[in-house]
């Protein structure tokens, strides 16, 4: 009993110290908004591309689109200028930001925006928004992204977490504190050997970022991340649609007279057949009705038999020959639905 009360006293002392020290140390004011804090600058990468290339069609998607659709071939087959705005590991939050903060404010508006997605990605606003993905989002977010904050972060936090982020410095500044610890551990020993921060970061890049991953481990990582899209709560379309970026994406394209087409890309069936396949089917039926009600063209290649398993190099990504085939299939589908000049 005595040791427990001693513990409580010491813990209270540490928390009090943190209360006093952290706001000054990291220049944070409390109470603060829960969720990540984005900086004001917005990268204009895609605005520049739009104004320079003046595309008729913009493709938005992640690595599966990058390795699944050849923009030059698509341009040739559709007779339209196509630009591909892919970002590895991106998802609906990122596509929403690109649309809102780059595409619609560029001088040149494309006639059509095509979003290439898999299964439940369009209604999973919390998918791929933390870690390195948060840095990607920060590049294209302003410091007043109310919708992004609410849909990608706050809606997924419980009441206690939000209160802790707003009022408890130790919890709220934990990312900063962790970075301090990580920096200390990461750079100390290499520094003794004369390897400064740049040298250490280069070494980490050489060993991890630019190296090949073991195929089984890569597959296992992909599966682990993708499983989120197939949880029962994600497969309930009606429960998620209003909390997702889809209504905003539709509204933004409508207000700017841009045709929106969404394209469902097939994952490799051989490796991703799921016991809950009927739930995926129901989800797609509901998505399809919703898009039709909102005048959005939906091209569903999620079960296209032409995309055989041997066209894939893993559970998600197509091989070059698969990319050519899918681009041809997509061009065929687009030719009937693209807005006329």
């Amino acid at each position, binding site marked *: *009993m005595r040791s427990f009360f001693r513990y409580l006293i010491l813990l209270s002392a540490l928390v009090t110290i943190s209360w006093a020290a952290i706001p000054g140390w990291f220049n944070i004011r409390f109470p603060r908004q829960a969720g990540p804090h984005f900086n004001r600058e917005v990268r204009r990468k895609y605005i520049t591309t739009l104004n320079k290339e003046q595309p008729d069609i913009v493709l938005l998607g992640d690595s599966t689109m990058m390795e699944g659709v050849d923009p030059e071939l698509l341009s040739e087959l559709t007779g339209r200028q196509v630009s591909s705005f892919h970002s590895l590991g991106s998802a609906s939050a990122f596509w929403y930001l690109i649309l809102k903060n780059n595409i619609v404010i560029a001088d040149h508006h494309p006639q059509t925006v095509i979003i290439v997605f898999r299964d439940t990605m369009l209604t999973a606003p919390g998918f791929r928004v933390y870690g390195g993905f948060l840095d990607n989002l920060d590049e294209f977010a302003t410091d007043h992204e109310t919708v992004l904050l609410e849909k990608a972060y706050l809606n997924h936090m419980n009441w206690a977490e939000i209160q802790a982020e707003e009022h408890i410095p130790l919890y709220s500044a934990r990312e900063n504190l962790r970075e301090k610890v990580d920096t200390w551990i990461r750079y100390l020993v*290499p520094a003794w050997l004369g390897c400064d921060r740049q040298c250490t970061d280069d070494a980490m890049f050489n060993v991890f970022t630019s190296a090949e991953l073991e195929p089984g481990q*890569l597959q296992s990582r992909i599966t682990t991340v993708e499983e989120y899209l197939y949880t029962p709560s994600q497969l309930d379309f009606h429960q998620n649609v209003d909390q997702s970026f889809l209504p905003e994406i539709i509204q933004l394209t409508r207000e700017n007279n841009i045709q929106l087409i969404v394209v469902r890309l097939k994952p490799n069936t051989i490796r991703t057949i799921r016991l809950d396949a009927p739930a995926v089917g129901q989800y797609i039926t509901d998505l399809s009705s919703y898009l039709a009600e909102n005048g959005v063209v939906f091209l569903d290649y999620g079960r296209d038999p032409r995309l055989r398993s041997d066209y894939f190099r893993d559970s998600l990504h197509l091989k070059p020959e698969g990319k050519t085939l899918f681009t041809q299939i997509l061009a065929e589908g687009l030719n009937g639905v693209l807005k006329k000049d």
Partner: protein
Amino acid sequence: MSFASLSFIIFLVCTFALYWLVKKREWQNPILLAASYLFYGWVTPSLAVMLGASTMLDFFLARGIQASPVRTRLFMALSLTLNLGVLAGFKYYNFFNDELANFVTSLGMNGDFFLTRVLLPAGLSFYTLKKLGYMIDVSRGMLKPTHALVDFALYVSFFPQIIAGPIERPQKLLPQIEAQRAWKADFFYGAWPLILMGFFKKIVIADNIKIISDQIFSLDEPSIFLLIMGALAFTLQILADFSGYTDMSRGFAMLFGFQTSENFNLPYTSLTPTDFWNRWHITLSNWLRDYIFFPIGRALKRSRLNLPPWQVLSIPPIATMFISGLWHGAGWNFVMWGVYYGVLISVYQLVGIRGDWKPKSPWAHGLAWFVMFTFIVIGWAMFRAPSLAWLGNILFNEPFLHSQSDLIVGLIAFSMVIAYSIPLWIKLGLDKYAKDGWLTSAYYAFATVLIIVFLNATFPDFIYNQF
């Protein structure tokens, strides 16, 4: 339901309040049983149904053994077939399904159905061993089967233990379930340090060291130096992860008035392989010793094969550890890891070094520790490797260092291992020299602060949940 989720905290508080409010054992056990099934079936309710069906079956088979001893073999065979069949089916199906699908396709049928990945129900390996232990003890006449289905079902499904043990023996847990329990403040004062240390080991140590260990073991062709550093990182990760889980499990059990078994006793201070297995995952080691090692040893001694003594000495540990490897997972690396320990135990015993061996000279002690620790790290490298081919390729084809970058990254990994193991060393010292003093309280207060700092949105599953 994860131990570190808000839903678990709410679940725990409600169960705790209700459990101690009713006071009577007749009500406490059903409440705890219902809570355990809710906990287990929270994400996938069908798992709770499967658990219930298999529990009922063993309950009635055990009663059958008591009622009709002449049919003991039949009932035991039934129990073994069903328990091991279900375990093997779930555990090894994914290992063979590609071949099965190819075979079906070669017959001109659609084999896609067989490619569906089957997820191993969490805890299946653990509660299967619990039930088998109970059945074997009943069949041997070492245990009287309980007549209360609720008590037996609670023994099998007790929520602090169902996901990853400890694999509690019926002789220890069942009498506690059957006894009257009244609230004592000591339960709380015993539980909170365990729960706190469990969270600390998991959130602060295991989940952080996991980052570098995962990255190294994800590389297609790391150098030998990186492999060594990755294996060292995993050595720390698996200890912190699994012993953290066990601490939480014991702490939660204590809140409900149960004393459960320790699973770890400074395993990395072992001097021999037998010593290591007496200190690592103790409840599994004891289970394997009593139900596999001893019976094989007895059978060999009684057999008419007239095997030479070295074989009589070597076969039981190798066979037992082979089964232990299979139990840990469907993969040749697990099998190899098990056999590796079996061979190590045999070799140590054949040269006359038994589990309780203690060299007199401190130098010999240090050397013995270093050799054994090296064996442990090599074992974990096998265990964590994506495949044996991957490990073989590195050992036989890769250089010690690819480049200067390997050296830098390896040193970062090593400094992480040192940094994240320091808290464990300090705790060891405090337990030895300053238990229950101000320093220990300060340690717990710092640990709490670090838990808050390292608390993440994601809480990766405990490694042993997957076995």
